[in-house]
């Protein structure tokens, strides 16, 4: 049964006083600094080298701190950020179409359905323009116009063109920029990096984060590292659903283990389902490939109007192209005339699900709708479309064997991004002093729904422009602290606990493989805690997930040895953390009796089927405290809106 307790509300989120547009400027001019000589005595541990971690590590090293970077990848350049396709937002107003810091701020607050902290979002919009300057200076080859200046395009949920892009591989190019900045400091010995090292615990001494326990994935050896502060930049947890658009190894372990050491986990139920992904097929399916949101700029989403045509197209008796215009239902354009195909992700995903649930899926097994480029090709010509989407078309064809030049894509929503994450204050510090969280692994900026092209922006804002200042404010008090001794009892204790948990899992010796159990568990999460949720379904799911946890302890099978490269052991540990997180997600989804952004509770909708928010009771971030029992404690951080008045989010 779902249980939780309510604890004291969060009253301190370190938001500076003053008018919104002065807060960050004032904070930066007044926050405490650490002198160059003292910085050299301080060590910062950064876990993760995606956009957030790599940009933070490079900047901290440049400031003079000693930085240690840990990643489970074989190279920092492989972080999941590499896979981002579509683009990155910035309030540059290069197109002169009326963009401004305010507008980007407003779109993000509204897009997040009024569940984010205004001051953080304002700061994000404020530093966004610097990110583009910084990245270009580092050699990131953004798309350009013939005049040699930067090009932009539009993305879902907004009416200006503020998205910068680099063919269909914006993430790779931005990450290579941040990675190269980081490698420059590796060369200068200010950064020491540890590939193939997975963090399994944070070590606290006198309540402050002082180090980590990591496992060398090649040898299995557990190792201890200490520092004056620990920064987690470990990405999102969409793989809780098993099938998602995330890279196969993305996981929640770092954040979850920090949670178990006291860090609050906020809004875990706020997950984003991306509308345009390749549909799931067989039991062997290992991931769902994203088709960039940018495709909705020119692609039109439709299903046949008549059920007879649905039948014929499913069975392959007719081709999509055989269905005449008047017999097609361009349902996003019909339902949302103002934004059409460019409605935000949550809105598009629900509309697609609705059409499929109503029996209009265009594939024989499973669910999918069409995303069609016929009109765009006719209007703009093949060259233009090729420039914009050529590589995405190629990717689609490689996977499916069908060419989007000839026939519409078939797409369906899939788990993609997690707005929830470790609770952090304005300084990006968790409630554990000295433990910071940046990038997708924190909960900070996107409220209940993230707008497209805003995650890359947030990761780099946190890493390049925010954390390097705010961490100094914390470290200013640490200049006399010697580097913590890794032989301290807290390190002994943490290592012992990590080892015994790992050995316990290894010794289960059951019959079910990790993947098999994860697939079953993920399906439960998707069915009951995915695109839409009900109180009844969530209660049922909670019981099912408890059973999965029991089954894990009885029946999981981990082959191989402890002291060698052992992917099954790695996955087993991550799965256990996912299962425990899954329980918290369900509790969070259950407790929030409203619909907002990506969190859609069927009981709370308007007669037209749009989400019904309840600002009176739920205008807060839900920060959960770990108790070691099945009864977590809820701390509410009330959200005050000074600049924008929450209103009904309408894209009609």
């Amino acid at each position, binding site marked *: 049964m779902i249980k939780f307790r309510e604890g004291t509300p969060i009253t301190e989120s370190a938001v500076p006083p003053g008018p919104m547009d002065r807060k960050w400027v004032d904070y930066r001019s007044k926050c405490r600094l650490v002198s160059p000589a003292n910085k050299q005595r301080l060590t910062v541990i950064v876990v993760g080298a995606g956009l957030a971690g790599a940009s933070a590590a490079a900047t901290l090293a440049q400031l003079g701190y000693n930085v240690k970077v840990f990643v489970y990848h074989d190279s920092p350049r492989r972080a999941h950020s590499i896979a981002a396709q579509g683009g990155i937002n910035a309030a540059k107003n290069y197109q002169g179409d009326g963009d401004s810091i305010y507008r980007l701020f407003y779109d993000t607050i509204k897009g997040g359905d009024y569940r984010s902290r205004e001051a953080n979002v304002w700061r994000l919009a404020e530093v966004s323009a610097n990110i583009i300057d910084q990245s270009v200076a580092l*050699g990131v080859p953004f798309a*350009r116009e013939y005049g040699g200046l930067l090009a932009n395009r539009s993305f879902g949920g907004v009416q200006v063109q503020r998205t910068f892009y680099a063919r269909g591989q914006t993430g790779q190019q931005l990450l290579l920029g941040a990675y190269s900045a980081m*490698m420059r400091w590796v060369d200068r010995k200010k950064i020491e990096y540890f590939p193939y090292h997975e963090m399994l615990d944070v070590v606290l001494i006198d309540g402050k984060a002082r180090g980590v326990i990591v496992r060398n994935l090649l040898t299995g050896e557990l190792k201890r590292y200490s520092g004056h502060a620990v920064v987690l930049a470990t990405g999102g947890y969409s793989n809780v659903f098993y099938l998602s658009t995330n890279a196969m*190894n993305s996981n929640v372990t770092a954040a979850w283990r920090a949670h178990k050491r006291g860090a609050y986990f906020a809004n875990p139920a706020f997950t984003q389902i991306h509308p345009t992904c390749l549909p799931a097929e067989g039991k*062997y399916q290992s991931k769902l490939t994203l088709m960039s949101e940018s495709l909705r700029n020119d692609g039109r989403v439709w299903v046949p109007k008549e059920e007879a045509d649905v039948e014929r197209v499913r069975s392959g008796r007719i081709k999509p192209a055989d269905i005449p215009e008047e017999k097609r239902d361009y349902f996003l354009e019909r339902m949302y005339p103002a934004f059409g195909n460019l409605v935000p992700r949550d809105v598009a995903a629900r509309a697609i699900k609705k059409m499929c649930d109503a029996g209009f899926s265009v594939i024989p097994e499973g669910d999918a709708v069409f995303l069609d480029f016929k009109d765009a090709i006719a209007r703009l010509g093949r060259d233009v479309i090729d420039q914009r989407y050529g590589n995405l078309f190629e990717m689609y064809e*490689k996977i499916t064997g069908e060419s989007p030049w000839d026939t519409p894509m078939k797409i369906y929503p899939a788990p993609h991004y997690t707005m929830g994450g470790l609770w952090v204050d304005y300084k990006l510090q968790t409630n554990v002093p000295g433990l910071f969280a940046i990038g997708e692994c924190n909960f900070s900026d996107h409220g209940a729904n993230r707008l497209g092209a805003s995650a890359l922006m947030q990761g780099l804002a946190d890493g390049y422009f925010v954390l390097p200042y705010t961490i100094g404010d914390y470290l200013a008090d640490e200049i006399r602290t010697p580097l913590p001794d890794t032989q301290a009892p807290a390190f002994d204790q943490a290592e012992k606990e990590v080892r015994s948990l790992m050995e316990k899992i290894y010794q289960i010796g059951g019959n079910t493989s990790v993947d098999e159990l994860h697939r079953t568990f993920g399906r439960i999460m998707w069915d009951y805690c995915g695109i839409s949720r009900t109180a009844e379904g969530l209660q049922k799911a909670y019981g099912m997930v408890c059973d999965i946890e029991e089954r894990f302890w009885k029946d999981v099978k981990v*082959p191989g040895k402890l002291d060698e490269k052992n992917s099954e052991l790695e996955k087993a540990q991550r799965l256990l953390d996912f299962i425990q997180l899954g329980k918290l997600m369900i509790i969070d989804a259950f407790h929030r009796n409203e619909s907002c952004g990506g969190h859609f509770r069927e009981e709370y909708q308007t007669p037209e089927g749009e989400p019904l928010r309840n600002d009176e009771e739920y205008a807060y971030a839900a920060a959960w405290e770990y108790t070691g029992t099945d009864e977590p404690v809820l701390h509410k951080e009330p959200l005050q809106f000074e600049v924008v008045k929450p209103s009904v989010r309408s894209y009609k």
Partner: protein
Amino acid sequence: MSKTINLTLKVWRQSGPNDKGGFETYSLQNVSTRMSFLEMLDVLNQQLIAEGKRPVEFEHDCREGICGACSLVINGRPHGPNYRTTTCQLHMRHFKDGETIYIEPFRADAFPVVKDLIVDRSAFDRIMAAGGYISVNTGSPQDANNIPVPKPKADKAFDAAECIGCGACVAACPNASAMLFVAAKVSHLSLLPQGEPERERRVRRMIEAMDAEGFGHCTNTGACSIECPKAIPQEFINRLNREFLRASFITEITDD
């Protein structure tokens, strides 16, 4: 439409860097032709786990052809038989029923085998650390549009920047040379105005690091570009040679 095939797999198994290693044979039934190659290996691993055997270790992450983690030499070809395709993007519809497939790790002295199909490609990171960057501090760089880049040049730089650092070029090369990788990295930055100030130092240091890692010399066989999943063209190797030559004529005034 989906159908299934039966396969014989000859997979390289090696328990660690010091083990000699060798091929093991496995048979796999009813493989859907809609699966990706790595999903086929997932299925093999599930079968091995069920039989109480140690699953095959292989590198992978994004499974969409961009992270550069996946590798494998499939029937003698890095990333398998398809042009411009990483192993994770290769699908089983390209294989025939009853076929025998050989699966090996990338082979090069500079890429020692870690386990089974995993090799250590950290040499690439060390080459990057030696100079694969533009030295600019985080702070207040000038407005991005103050550095216009003519589109053809920007496009060319981009063609080079597409390299995903997978190392297939090294595995494809009879001399295990890393020239295509280094060429892509050097060209990307040297084609841009931002990369100009460190142009000579960069190419010198990266070539030096490449040699120190024990990669072989380039004899222009062209195999790298053919197997490169991003089809990074040979012309970048010519460009790299020119850059290197140019750098050796220009006396270094300062270096740090």
